């Protein structure tokens, strides 16, 4: 057995350099106003008691089997129904019969999570990789791994940050015969794995999952990426935010619903188009522009990342040639994506579809403290807003709804969690929907995760389809 350099599982430095603000943060020094992340417990954002409570109330029975649940499962367990679909799918992806050997799968998981510097997932799968006890020197870094996996890096980075750039040429480069070429079945497996772990990284950061080994410092910086100068604005938002936030939201939904029913004046096509464009453009403004100079070299996951400069760029930028909008009706998951993915990697289509559907249809008919609320409009707005940021447009959706339903702080959060999850902070998480329950916010994260995964898959599968025709 070859020894892996250094000990990857423990970090002794008491300081954490935040990737976003690049400040060395000593735990104690930070401000008093911002709530400290929870260092112990499954999540840095959600009080441990709340999660435990939910578990005690309704233990997802199947899971009690496991002696020790990882934090991710615990947090996701707030929605046991979804968790079931999720775990079944993940188990199939990682453990069951499939085109790729088991250690490849974990390595791909590491590669995918490393793109978002998600140490939580990287570590978990390094462990799994150790257990396989083959090719251990791959853990030294990407360049030590198989040629085949190194070739995958290209689409890994594209899918992670700018999936709309993937073309059939990328697929061709991987599949063309020669040494270390990919078969289509293997490629589809890899693509699903990549999309799964990119999206899961979003969930991990979005829900502030803590590592299992307790450490005194949190991975999550308390800083605000929008910078200190905006702090005032941030707080003014706090004060202005109405106490009866859920009520207001329900009001809006009701109004929209009524408008629909009345359908007095139909918005013109142009109007619809501009609304979509507006959302797309606005998604640029939320969040905070470019972080081109991000420093990653010191991070523990950098050895699995090549070409680390390649980061998220907005789909729609002013004055640039935008890639054409992806029309959801022309390449939909139900009609096209499913058939292709299931054809090349049997049964995964059903599992993925189960996940998408469970996440989208999940509802408890309540909102904050109100019961009997139909949240479908809100759920659809969240899902479609993520797709909108990825340039996927639904002809039959009025993007004006997004604007009315999603407040700005929520949009900032969505944008951050889906596009560059590593910058998510406790403050962002706290800044929207103050009166909502944590489990509802986790539900939002689930929707974001699935929407993101589906968007990535659609782009990748479309490229594969184009390659095949």
């Amino acid at each position: 057995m070859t020894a892996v350099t250094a000990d990857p599982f423990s970090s002794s430095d008491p300081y954490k350099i935040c990737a976003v603000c690049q400040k060395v943060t000593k735990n104690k020094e930070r401000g008093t106003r911002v709530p400290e992340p929870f260092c112990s417990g499954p999540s840095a954002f959600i009080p441990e008691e709340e999660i435990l409570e939910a578990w005690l109330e309704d233990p997802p029975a199947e899971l009690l089997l496991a002696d020790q649940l990882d934090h991710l499962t615990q947090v996701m367990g707030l929605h046991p129904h979804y968790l079931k679909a999720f775990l079944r799918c993940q188990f199939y992806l990682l453990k069951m019969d499939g085109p790729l050997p088991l250690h490849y799968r974990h390595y791909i998981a590491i590669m995918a999570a490393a793109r978002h510097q998600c140490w939580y997932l990287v570590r978990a799968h390094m462990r799994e990789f150790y257990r396989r006890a083959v090719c251990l020197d791959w853990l030294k870094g990407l360049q030590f791994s198989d040629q085949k996996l190194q070739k995958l890096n290209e689409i890994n980075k594209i899918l992670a940050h700018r999936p709309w750039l993937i073309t059939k040429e990328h697929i061709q480069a991987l599949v063309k015969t020669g040494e270390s070429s990919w078969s289509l079945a293997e490629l589809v497996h890899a693509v699903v794995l990549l999309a799964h772990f990119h999206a899961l990284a979003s969930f991990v950061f979005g829900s502030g999952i803590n590592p299992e080994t307790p450490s005194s410092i949190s991975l999550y910086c308390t800083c605000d990426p929008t910078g200190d100068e905006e702090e005032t604005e941030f707080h003014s938002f706090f004060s202005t935010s109405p106490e009866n936030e859920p009520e207001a939201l329900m009001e809006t939904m009701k109004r929209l619903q009524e408008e629909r029913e009345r359908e007095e004046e139909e918005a013109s096509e142009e109007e619809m188009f501009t609304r979509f464009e507006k959302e797309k453009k606005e998604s640029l403004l939320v969040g905070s522009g470019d972080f081109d100079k991000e420093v990653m070299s010191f991070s523990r996951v950098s050895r699995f990342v090549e070409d680390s400069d390649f980061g998220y760029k907005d789909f729609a930028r002013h004055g640039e040639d935008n890639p054409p909008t992806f029309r959801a009706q022309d390449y939909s998951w139900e009609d096209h994506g499913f058939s292709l993915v299931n054809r090349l990697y049997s049964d995964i289509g059903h599992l993925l579809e189960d996940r998408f559907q469970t996440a989208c249809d999940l509802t408890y008919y309540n909102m904050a403290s109100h019961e009997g609320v139909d949240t479908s409009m809100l759920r659809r707005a969240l899902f479609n807003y993520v797709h909108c940021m990825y340039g996927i447009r639904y002809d039959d959706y009025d993007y004006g709804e997004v604007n009315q339903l999603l407040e700005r702080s929520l949009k900032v959060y969505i944008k951050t969690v889906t596009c560059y999850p590593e910058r998510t902070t406790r403050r962002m998480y706290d800044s929207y929907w103050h009166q909502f329950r944590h489990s509802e916010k986790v539900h939002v994260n689930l929707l974001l995760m699935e929407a993101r995964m589906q968007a990535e898959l659609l782009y990748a599968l479309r490229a594969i389809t184009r390659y095949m025709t």
Partner: protein
Amino acid sequence: MAVMEKMTRASSGGMISGRTMFCHLDAPANAISVCRDATQVVVAGRNIFKIFALEDEGFVERLNLRVGRKPSLNFSCADVMWHQMEENLLATAATNGAVVTWNLGRPCRNKQEQLFTEHKRTVNKVCFHPTEVHMLLSGSQDGYMKCFDLRKKESVSTFSGQSESVRDVQFSMKDYFTFAASFENGNVQLWDIRRPDRYERMFTAHTGPVFCCDWHPEDRGWLATGGRDKMVKVWDMTTNRAKEIFCVQTIASVARVKWRPERKWHLATCSMMVDHNIYVWDVRRPYIPFATFEEHKDVTTGIVWRHQHDPDFLLSGSKDSTLYQHMFKDASRPVDRANPEGLCFGLFGDLAFAAKESLMSGEVGRKPYAGGDRRYPIFFFKKPDVTEQFAQVSSALSVFETAPGGAPMDWFIKTARRYLLSGRPFAELCEHNAKVAKDLNRPQVSTTWTMLRIMFSDPANPSSSSNHNLSKLGNLPLMNSFSMKEMSSALTERNKENRQDNIHNLDSNLNTTEDNEETEGSEGQAEYLFGDAELDDDDLYSMEHENQAAEEAEFSLPQEAFPLRHEIVDHPSAPEPLTEKPESPHVSGSEAEATCLTPMESFSLISVSSSLLFPPHLPPAFFSPVVIAMLRYYAEQGDVQMAVSVLIVLGDRIRREIDELTQEHWYMSYIDLLQRFELWNVSNEVIKLSTCGAISCLNQASTTLHINCSNCKRPMNNRGWICDRCHQCASVCAVCHHVVKGVFVWCQGCSHGGHLTHIMDWLRNSTYCPAACGHQCEYT
């Protein structure tokens, strides 16, 4: 395209004429429809909405319905339909949820007549009533179907599919009030247009979305459905429960299905993904398409028969931006290219062979295999059907079995069961395996094991085991393949003489002097085995043609012989003569005594005499190349069992010398064989003992066993023996009423069970379940 040059005329009544032709569209098409008199076709897509006239020479663009400067999503069509009564009337379904009707009779450029925006999601399908002029039906992603009266500004009734997306709606051709709707969740619903509150009937037609459905144009009860599960099903709706009467399995999800006019059994399909062809199926022959149109370069999105009473013209639009008219006579007929011959090997060496009857009949008289072989001709007769235009092919299937008693693969199973691969010292393992091989009449394999023991054993303590071996060898009357074949001694004689010259040549190579005669003998025997083996077999064949065993011998002979030759050249320690001697008439008693040297002894003898060349104790590594060559040889001969067994037993002694891939390949082949013979335990042992990562992870997959509590029938979630729902011990033995901690056997019928031994005892005396539930349990 050459096909297009062919001028053809319509075969049916000369009503319409045309040829296979195509035209380029500016954009991908989503759907097409023809007008009633079959002279014009409308093509609709996201960026196209045009009408083409069908002329004899080609398509001529008549009208572009996309007018106006503003791009409107109302033009982005998911579906289009031309009214079959009113020739100026069209309807489209837009991706933004609008239903639009168009009147070609309008004097201005904009032909749009009505716009219904009642659906909230994409409208997937519009359908005019076949006889009622003003009735239009739409089905949408939002789960609703709406019926419009074109004289009114809004829908007259709404049908709720209970929140599942509607993929297709079709009015029945014969029943005025009935329409069928297919859904994304796999259901098909039948509705009465007068009763919007509830469907008349619902059934699950497919797993996954049902993309399309089509009523049979003549038979009122037949509905064809196509789904994402790659199937086309034909349902008989006249009975109380919808009955599936035909099922065609295609290779990709089915996007459209259309019955062929005037041909009761035919329907055309195209797929949504991957497959670009259009198939015409005879539903009674679901395995091979009746005809195929292969012109499109991207998925076909719309198909329509040009005229309701003409079966020869098919129009299709595609994502590759072309519009085609296909002539049926230009279609390719897969059945002509199909190969009606098939050949397959069974596990035990049986052979099944199917061929066209005409081919077979010529050979029936020849009786290629006689005696022990049995021939089972099986004929599949189908009543020739005049209406069926399929080429009639009947094949004869013959199954050749190996002769009873030949049991050619027995040795494999027995060897696999009896070999020891681990758990004892190396020398003992080799010895044991050698004995097993010898018991099974595989002297050469046995010898190989013995030699491996010699080569790799610690040279310090060979004596005891070799003595032990000696006695064993002496006692065992070992037969080789020759005795099996009952060869005449005359033949042996002849061969012996043939051998003489060779022997002398070989002798000169050997520097053993005192043993010369002995070695000569052994050389001779060995030489006989290899050199003349084939010749002998040929002879044998001509003599005992009907003996299946002879054929088997042909397999085993060269395989056993070859490596010996090498080993003799390297170290002339051939135990082979041992096995020959008892039968050889020329050997005197003393000679026999002398030949009963154990291999070990002969080895030491020779190594003493050849001490000039080699040190007395050769390091095991010295033999590696030979052993590797031997392993490869076995593997190539098809005896991968030997290769893998040796690999495991030798373990680290040899493992590093052979590349991983080869090892993996051997392991995989062997495991595959073992599993075919259902030798699960052996296969698992091999997997466990293997050192390849890819192999050992094989039995780490699918390791979960889900069990239900025997009391409350709920899934057991706890490890341990107590069900956490009913707080009872779940796995109690039905015989002794104690908790079973270990091997638990239970009846799949009544789910009672218990300790393996208890249950076995119980069922020996009784056929009923020990829990007195009245179930007749079976233990097999």
